[in-house]
């Protein structure tokens, strides 16, 4: 039931797991060429208050303790501290002593006192409930859940135990069980009012998290009415109201002020809106909120870590380090803090920044590529070319000139990348864009050749433009849709790539109306819906481009600066209602995919038959089945494409022409399997089709630049076509890959330098080659030539 180690998302959903589903779906789809990414992944918190210790909301009625609580929440902190210290004496029960220690931040002593309290009052469920809440505050959700369970064994109707269990489960537990606990409190007429208010606030957080603003507003109103009727504290509720107002462009400050008026030292009045600002990718404003939180409450360690992470998103590394360190010094138990500290070590010690243009042409670079030092010499040229090409393309297409340097971070260790992006490991994402900065996986993070890093970079760069052109106000589906559409239209491997499960969803008419397309990203209700939504969003822009023209896409994009809904944008720019749009889009899908969807079963059968025949070494049967599959769906170029089956079968049948044709079509339609592309490059080279060979080899580098042979072929081709400078780049990459045959790699570099008339470098690399392999004849001959020339 409790699976925290495998799932670190904390978000709960009353109806379905939200990000838990997203992460699983995305991980399962890593194989896809389309860069399935989260535009901005949300950090886990907010299932419970992030203040060091929540308001009691009536959970305990000890008058001495409540006096201290009153002072504390009224902002009389010195008086409150003295009051809590007065409760350490033996006249108080162990539980009250525990509460006092806890309120003063002494979790160790609080824990000891709770242990004692359990021994003295083993039948009191509230001791276990409060101890469980202490475990939640120290991020030990599984242990907390166990304690709430024990409390419920003693008193199955204990609402405080149910709300505690729901809180613990919101950190990665079963959402169905979470909802059962929550409903127990919400529906229980006799539930303590404070417990019920906490349940209502959990619901509000969930609604805000899912952009369900109308429901959130209604729930907030109900909660306020309830709290006022029952005279409950409302500073947390006001902070949530401020969050709602911020997210819906309302006046949030008035609610923050109201929260602080009720509890002047309440850092969460700022922190909670800050957290919700990160959800809607308003990182600059989030940073301002977090700064206010730590100014007001310097021991708000959670705010420090979120501020630190936010600085990372904004590329302010020094301030990030400072706040992560402050957070660690204050609370070394927060796993997010520990993860970020480790990451920052890696980041500062192992990563290098390369700035462009080089040499600089102004006070700021236009592009900064941050690479692991061990991958720098392999990736830098390709990352630069992809980045600069995509910036040029998007600048022109989206009429937006970047105002700041664009920062591209590429991580060889997937978990480093995930921690950098969301603070916690264990999530299957490929890239995350924060604004002018995006982070992504290196190809070495996915060694199985199914990850196309060039496409991921292209996808993320599109987000930079759609986010910054709209002040981060672009709706999620819109930004994702444009990124997918650009992959298909202008990316390194153009062409629509629709996975099989999406075709299946199309056949089952599972595309969502455009008005609620964000639900497919935010509230998926079946496995794989996130991927289906990505594809639908991409197809929508393909459709708009074909039907109305590309400019309409850009016109719609800029309307989001005016705080307009996607439906209104469609009406204003395309002149049709959303329902009309849905109808036209459906017709487009029917025209484009109707015949395929009708024959989907036959296509899948042919695909299966092709692979089975291949395995059985029945080459002719395999080729025939694959050809049938190609006839039904000629654009399918995933790595299990029938073109690959055909190529393999024809290779075995020694039919080189057919093998070549299959590989060529696979590539021309956007296939990217590196082994297949290298075979095709060989065919082109054999046939002296140099420009095609060069294009195929460049495409291979965007799929997997860590293949030695690729750089040998490409470098040799450049040498053969009198482009030694480009050849040199390839051979330098080859050497950076630490090849077994270092003599040849050094010799190739020497040759390129020789062609560039650089005698010093030629000699340097030539002698290195000859020292490794003194009898290496081609190198000897070059030495002879050089010797004779210099004489």
């Amino acid at each position, binding site marked *: 039931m409790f699976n925290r180690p495998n799932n670190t998302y904390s978000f709960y959903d009353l109806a379905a797991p939200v990000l838990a589903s997203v992460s699983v779906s995305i991980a399962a789809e890593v194989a896809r060429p389309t860069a399935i990414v989260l535009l901005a992944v949300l950090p886990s918190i907010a299932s419970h208050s992030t203040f060091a210790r929540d308001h009691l909301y009536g959970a305990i009625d000890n008058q001495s303790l409540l006096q201290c609580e009153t002072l504390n929440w009224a902002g009389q902190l010195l008086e409150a501290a003295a009051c809590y210290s007065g409760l350490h004496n033996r006249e108080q029960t162990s539980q009250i002593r525990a509460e006092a220690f806890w309120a003063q931040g002494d979790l160790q002593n609080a824990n000891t006192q709770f242990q004692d309290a359990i021994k003295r009052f083993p039948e009191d469920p509230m001791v276990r409930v409060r101890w469980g809440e202490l475990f939640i505050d120290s991020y030990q959700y599984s242990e907390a859940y166990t304690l709430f369970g024990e409390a419920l064994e003693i008193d199955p109707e204990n609402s405080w135990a149910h709300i505690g269990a729901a809180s613990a489960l919101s950190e990665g537990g079963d959402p169905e069980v979470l909802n059962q606990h929550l409903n127990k409190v919400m529906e229980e007429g006799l539930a303590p009012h404070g417990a019920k208010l906490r349940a209502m606030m959990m619901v509000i957080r969930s609604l805000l998290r899912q952009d369900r603003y109308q429901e959130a507003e209604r729930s907030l109103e109900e909660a306020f009415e309830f709290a006022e009727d029952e005279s409950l504290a409302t500073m947390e509720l006001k902070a949530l109201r401020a969050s709602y107002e911020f997210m819906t462009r309302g006046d949030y400050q008035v609610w923050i002020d109201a929260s602080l008026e009720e509890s002047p030292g309440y850092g969460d009045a700022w922190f909670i809106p800050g957290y919700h600002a990160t959800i809607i990718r308003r990182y600059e404003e989030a940073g301002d909120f977090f700064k206010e939180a730590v100014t007001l409450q310097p021991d708000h360690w959670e705010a420090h870590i979120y501020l630190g992470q936010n600085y990372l998103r904004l590329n302010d590394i020094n301030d990030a380090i400072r706040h992560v360190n402050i957070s660690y010094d204050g609370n070394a138990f927060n796993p997010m803090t520990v993860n970020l500290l480790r990451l920052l070590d890696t980041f500062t010690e192992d990563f290098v920044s390369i700035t462009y243009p080089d040499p600089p042409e102004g006070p700021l670079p236009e592009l900064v590529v941050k690479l692991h030092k061990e991958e720098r010499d392999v990736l830098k040229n390709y990352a630069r070319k992809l980045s600069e090409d995509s910036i040029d393309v998007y600048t022109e297409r989206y009429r937006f000139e970047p105002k700041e340097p664009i920062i591209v971070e590429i991580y060889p260790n997937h978990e480093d990348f995930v921690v950098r992006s969301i603070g916690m490991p264990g999530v299957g994402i490929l890239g995350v864009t924060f604004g002018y900065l995006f982070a992504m996986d290196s190809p070495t993070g996915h060694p199985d050749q199914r990850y196309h890093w060039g496409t991921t970079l292209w996808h993320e760069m599109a987000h930079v433009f759609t986010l910054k052109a709209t002040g981060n106000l672009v709706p999620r589906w819109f930004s994702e849709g444009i990124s997918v559409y650009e992959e298909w239209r202008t990316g390194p491997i153009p062409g629509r790539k629709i996975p099989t499960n999406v075709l299946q969803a199309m056949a089952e008419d599972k595309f969502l109306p455009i008005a609620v397309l964000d639900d497919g990203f935010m509230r998926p209700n079946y496995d794989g819906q996130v991927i289906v939504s990505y594809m639908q969003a991409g197809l929508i822009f393909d459709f708009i481009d074909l039907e109305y023209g590309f400019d309409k896409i850009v016109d719609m994009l800029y309307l989001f600066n005016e705080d307009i809904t996607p439906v209104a944008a469609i009406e204003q720019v395309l002149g049709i209602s959303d329902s009309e749009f849905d109808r036209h889009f459906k017709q487009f899908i029917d025209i484009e995919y109707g015949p395929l969807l009708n024959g989907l079963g036959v296509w899948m059968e042919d695909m299966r038959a092709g692979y089975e025949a291949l395995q059985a070494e029945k080459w002719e049967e395999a080729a025939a089945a694959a050809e049938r599959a190609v006839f039904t769906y000629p654009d399918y170029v995933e790595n299990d494409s029938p073109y690959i089956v055909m190529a393999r079968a024809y290779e075995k049948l020694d039919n080189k022409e057919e093998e070549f044709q299959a590989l060529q079509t696979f590539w021309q339609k956007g296939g990217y399997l590196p082994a297949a592309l290298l075979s095709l490059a060989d065919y082109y080279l054999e046939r002296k089709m140099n420009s095609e060979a060069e294009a195929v080899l460049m495409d291979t580098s965007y799929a997997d630049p860590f293949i030695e042979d690729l750089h040998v072929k490409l470098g040799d081709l450049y040498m053969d076509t009198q482009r030694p400078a480009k050849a040199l780049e390839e051979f330098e990459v080859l050497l950076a890959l630490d090849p077994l045959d270092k003599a040849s790699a050094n010799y190739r570099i020497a040759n390129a330098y020789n062609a560039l008339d650089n005698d010093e470098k030629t000699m340097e690399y030539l002698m290195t080659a000859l020292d*490794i392999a003194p009898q290496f004849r081609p190198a000897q001959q070059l030495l002879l030539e050089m010797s004779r020339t210099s004489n």
Partner: protein
Amino acid sequence: MTNTTANKVMNKVMNKLQIMLLLLISTILLIPNANAALYVTIVQGLGGLPEYDDKFADQAQKIYDASITLADASHVTSMAGDDATRSALLIHFQNLAESMNEDDRAAIYLVGHGSYDGEQYKFNISGPDITDADLAEILESFPGQNHFLVNTSSTSGAILDGLESDQRVIITATRNGNEKNATEFGNYFAAALASDIADINKNNNVSIQEAFDFAERSVAEFFESSGKLATEHPQIRGEGAASFSLARVEPLATSDENPRINAFISRRLELDTEIESLQLRRNEFSNVEYIQNLQALILESAEISEQIDSLREGTQANVQ
């Protein structure tokens, strides 16, 4: 080039070359006597399944073909199936030991499956298996030193501790006896001997070290590219792996009917030895001196090769 430029080049090259020194020292320490004979024994174990039988047969054949490029064919023995019983093997090795002299070298290839029960390693053959104790006894029985054994089987790492010695080179497909999965190492080791792909120093010979380096890297790439956890970690122990050739990529020209060519070949062989000697003594020179000396030797060798080629082309032209 100016002298300054040359010096800069020398310094840079020297920095790159330091790292290769150790390898070269080991190369030269154990240069075998030119008159020494190489005796090769290839033992093909039981596959258990046709798929493995085919694989092992293919590997054994590649090793055999490679071995006869270097060793006298009469000194290369392949044993497989019912011929490769424990008793037959023990007799073979006993005879071999008796026929070898102090300068001779033995190379043993075990291609097949192995097992390890925590105490004893067994190489799976027809009838009773060959054990790690048998292998130790066999190796000890050979006169002289510089012998070689490669065991490509699963769990083969279990033999390392028992057989490790400065007197011989031992290669295993696995790190220890706990790596029990069928291995990939043998495929790559045999492939390394079958072409010039592993000949990184371009001397037209594939040494034990070169074959091991190629196979080790290929195994790692195999597991990485297939997204699988590596279930084998090849090991090499002992001295002299870089100087022990297992296969020749091209026929060696050690003499020629043309006396002029013969003289050139002799001089080139001398130069090879001088280059090796210089590399061994590189610490005695400054960076600049070292590179200048190396360059001079290699230039002379290159000029000789050019003249040999020219003379041969002339001969061919005359014949035509």
